[in-house]
């Protein structure tokens, strides 16, 4: 497809990003504020030779995505908090079986049914810790309609490269706002695909990693035979209750993300060069923060923004570096404090102040201005 320009909403940009990334399977169950993704995929999947299936619930949706991925098809689902809660068991299965998939969470007010049409950033820790066991996933936090497209492509590429579920964590405002979207010519989009085995089938060990800690992935229906299980398994894929097998496996599943964090994490630095006060934000509050920083700069306060485009793995190195350069850090998130605790641990002993807002509207620019002034005069 040649380059296209649309004026469209974040949810639809996400669906178009998935299609451009090569996604050809969507299994889902509609839920506000992610319904437009399902609607758009229902219309577009048949046009591009893919399949859209609406299931009876979110549990069936994500397990179908796991199955589709094992056939070699890039696959995704999209939901909101209540749906993610139901999907969490299968997220653990995808982590354990090293299944590439993309899970979009358009975050609404919670807990439980909460406020369906209002936004929040309450699911940041859920994405990391919502399934049981020690594990790592990747979570990206777009802040604009264009980023809903670009970061969905990045989510697919990362999930393929590291064989891991990747969350696209967008607050409702980003999902439902409309802006200009530029869809590049398809030849200008860089796509990645999982490593396939090249050894003779008789020598194939389905969970033996390469040096990057990621094992090549055989596909269902090919000449390779393998067994994929949620039980702890050795390199052959056979279940094991041995201590060393458990330690080796879960250490590798964590390290393949943590040791590659520098290749995964992306941040935007805004007016940080001479900053004494840094705001850390992601999603819609980062846009309030940008406005606020421009405003306080007019008053002579040297403030800047570290915008997190990746929250998991946590951008620890960036925050540690920042803490050595600035005097104070403000974390503004649309919840009662989640990434704040990660920042506080990484930034210590630099003081970290929390600005909470557990409701539909992000912090207003003038509220962040006020907070920066207070921190500046303290």
């Amino acid at each position, binding site marked *: 497809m040649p380059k296209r320009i649309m004026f469209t909403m974040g949810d639809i940009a996400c669906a178009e990003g998935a299609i451009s990334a090569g996604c050809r399977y969507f299994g889902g169950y509609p839920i*506000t504020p992610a319904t437009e993704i399902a609607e758009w995929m229902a219309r577009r999947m048949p046009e591009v030779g893919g399949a859209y299936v609406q299931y009876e619930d979110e549990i069936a949706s994500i397990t179908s995505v796991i199955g589709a991925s094992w056939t070699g098809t890039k696959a995704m689902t999209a939901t909101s908090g209540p749906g993610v809660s139901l999907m969490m068991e299968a997220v653990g299965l995808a982590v354990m079986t090293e299944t590439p998939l993309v899970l979009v969470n358009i975050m609404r007010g919670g807990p439980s049914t909460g406020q369906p*049409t209002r936004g929040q950033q309450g699911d940041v820790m859920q994405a990391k810790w919502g399934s049981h066991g020690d594990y790592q996933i990747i979570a990206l936090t777009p802040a604009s309609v264009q980023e809903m497209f670009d970061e969905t492509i990045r989510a697919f590429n990362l999930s393929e490269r590291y064989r891991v579920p990747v969350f696209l964590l967008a607050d409702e405002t980003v999902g*439902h706002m409309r802006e200009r979207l530029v869809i590049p010519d398809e030849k200008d989009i860089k796509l990645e695909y999982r490593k396939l085995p090249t050894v003779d089938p008789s020598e194939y060990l389905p969970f033996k990693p390469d040096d990057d800690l990621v094992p090549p992935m055989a596909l269902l229906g090919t000449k390779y035979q393998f067994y994929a299980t949620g039980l702890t398994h050795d390199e052959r894929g056979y279940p094991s209750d041995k201590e060393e097998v458990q330690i080796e496996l879960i250490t590798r599943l964590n390290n393949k993300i943590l040791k590659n964090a520098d290749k995964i994490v992306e941040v935007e630095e805004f007016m940080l060069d001479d900053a004494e006060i840094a705001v850390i934000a992601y999603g819609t509050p980062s846009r309030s923060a*940008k*406005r606020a920083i421009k405003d306080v700069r007019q008053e002579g306060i040297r403030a800047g923004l570290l915008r997190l485009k990746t929250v998991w793995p946590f951008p620890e190195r960036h925050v540690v570096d920042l803490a050595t350069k600035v005097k104070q850090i403000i974390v503004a998130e649309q919840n009662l404090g989640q990434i704040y605790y990660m920042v506080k641990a990484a930034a210590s002993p630099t003081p970290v102040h929390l600005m909470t807002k557990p409701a*539909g509207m992000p912090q*207003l*620019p003038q509220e962040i201005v006020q907070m920066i002034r207070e921190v500046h005069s303290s």
Partner: protein
Amino acid sequence: MSRYEVRIGGFGGQGIVTMAVVLGETLSLIDNKYVVQTQSYGPEARGGASKSEVVIGDEEIDYPKVQRPDVFIAMSRAAYLEYVDGMREGGILIVDEDLVQIEGSLPSSVRVYKIPATRIADMEVGNKQTTNVVMLGALAAITGIVSVEGLKQRIAERWPRFKELNLKALELGLEAGRRAVESSQT
């Protein structure tokens, strides 16, 4: 124009969101402005409170929501009462005069334009569903923030089956807007 903010408030079903979307599409795709359009509405499909917003600029828009609107279009009494206090000094207030009475005290610098958009859509266009397009025409005539040719092009692209009907609604809205401007100057 560094930043220009439009807020539209009314009931679910009046086309409040569609109106902002068509405005945003025209400004972004045809007039080549930076635009962000957002909305807020309740869980109901019809009848609940509905609000939509468009922020326009010559550079990238940071904060995507309206802070103090340059223009507020009130299509219901509830929306008027909720948002009228947020008006900017020198701002423009457009009301559907059959649905919204001016209540309370407005800053003296606020300019008020009364457009019977629902009546025009019902009686003159012959379809109440075009109320939002009538109001869009009035907005264009009163503020000049969006090109009329752009709106015509966008309406024709967007609703090929209902092109004539909506172009008529737009034209009647433009006329009503021009009349409202003239009468405010006399």
